[in-house]
């Protein structure tokens, strides 16, 4: 699956884009970048999701599906059941966000700021 996505991404970048102009060229770049996200998601996504789930289970005190656990975490933050000053919460949010940005926008300037610590 990963190879297929990378092949299409490479086709767009090296073969199709030089033939395109204007708006279509711009959208081809956006499409290639989107496939880059898919490729990174396939590569590192499952492991990141497993870690996120394990961390959520530790924070919330029980196992569950990823989306349900995230919903519960949101509810707890909102209702003040988890203190936003808690370092366990902050570490969790930071780690999951770093993993997410590495997949979504690995060149984002905010990621460099985060890593410069």
């Amino acid at each position, binding site marked *: 699956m990963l190879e297929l996505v990378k092949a299409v991404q490479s086709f767009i970048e090296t073969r199709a884009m030089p033939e395109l102009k204007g708006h279509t060229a711009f959208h081809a770049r956006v499409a290639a970048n989107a496939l880059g996200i898919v490729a990174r998601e396939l590569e590192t996504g499952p492991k990141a999701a497993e870690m996120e789930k394990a961390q959520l289970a530790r924070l919330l005190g029980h196992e569950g599906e990823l*989306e349900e656990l995230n919903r519960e975490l*949101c509810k707890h*933050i909102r209702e003040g059941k988890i203190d*936003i000053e808690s370092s366990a*919460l902050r570490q969790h949010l930071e780690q999951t966000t770093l993993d*997410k940005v590495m997949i979504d*926008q690995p060149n984002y*300037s*905010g990621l460099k700021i985060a890593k410069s*610590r």
Partner: protein
Amino acid sequence: MTTTVDFFADLDRALAMALPGFERVESITRLSGGASQETWAFDALIDGRSEPLILRRSPGGGARVTESGNSVALETEAVVIEAARASGVAAPRVRYVLKPADHVGHGYVMDRLSGETIARKILRDVEFDAVRPDLARQCGTILAKIHQVDAAPLAHLLPVIDGPTQLRRYRDLYDSYNYPHPVFEFAFKWLEPRMAKPRRQTLVHGDFRHGNLLISPRGVEAALDWELTHIGDPLEDIGWICTNSWRFGVADKVVGGFGDLRDLIAGYEEAGGGKVDIDDARTWIVYGSLKWGVMCMSMYQGFRADGSVERAAIGRRSSETEIDLINLIIHGKM
């Protein structure tokens, strides 16, 4: 081009009555079109001289309709621009506000000034090298003048959208997507006590950032696009231009990717804008990132409707704002 514009003859007739010495519209070109307005560039022959002008008009000339409902009427926009100009704010002079009898629709005509609005050029092109270090201070000066405009005569035209109101609106918008983002919840929770009380209220530009700042090698020529102007907390404008999403990769230059916050504040205070507390400014930068994050979610919802690649990809950009929120709130890093 000109022959295909259905309101061309009507515009010509309206300006002939409105502008002394007006002879004719020479050429007209569509610059951009959004859901909320059309922008046309044209030249008008006035007293034998060709003058560059802009027509801002609602799509098809109808009344302005927007998703957010935050936009003011184009006629109000024109009134606010003139009030701001009277207080020394750099903005394009409004030449004529369309009337219903003109049959051109809702909108107004203003001067077309020269300069650049594209961030990547302003931040990277050599011709801006000399002026770039001074831009943050100039932005501070312009904002100080905007925030000192006498808002009383405008009060009946403009909505009051203060800190608590804004936070509630974006909370409602976020909730409506029913898509849990723990970092956004965290940011809302962090902001709530900090934005709980309405504070100083002034005229606010409402969208003071790259794209709406006309910049030439001489400096900031004008603040454009007053569509989101309102009465609110002046720190909103300072926080928005400092939001990382508007730095276009030059993250260490907090103000628009070109300058330092202390320079903006120096320009602001010197021009009589009042004292700016850094922690308060940071609160509004956090708000700016959160707002942009929720806007990305909102654009992604648009993708579900139109299926474009660009809109699909922008949903992923909300994670950029999440790392910005972590940097700002947890580590105090702008």
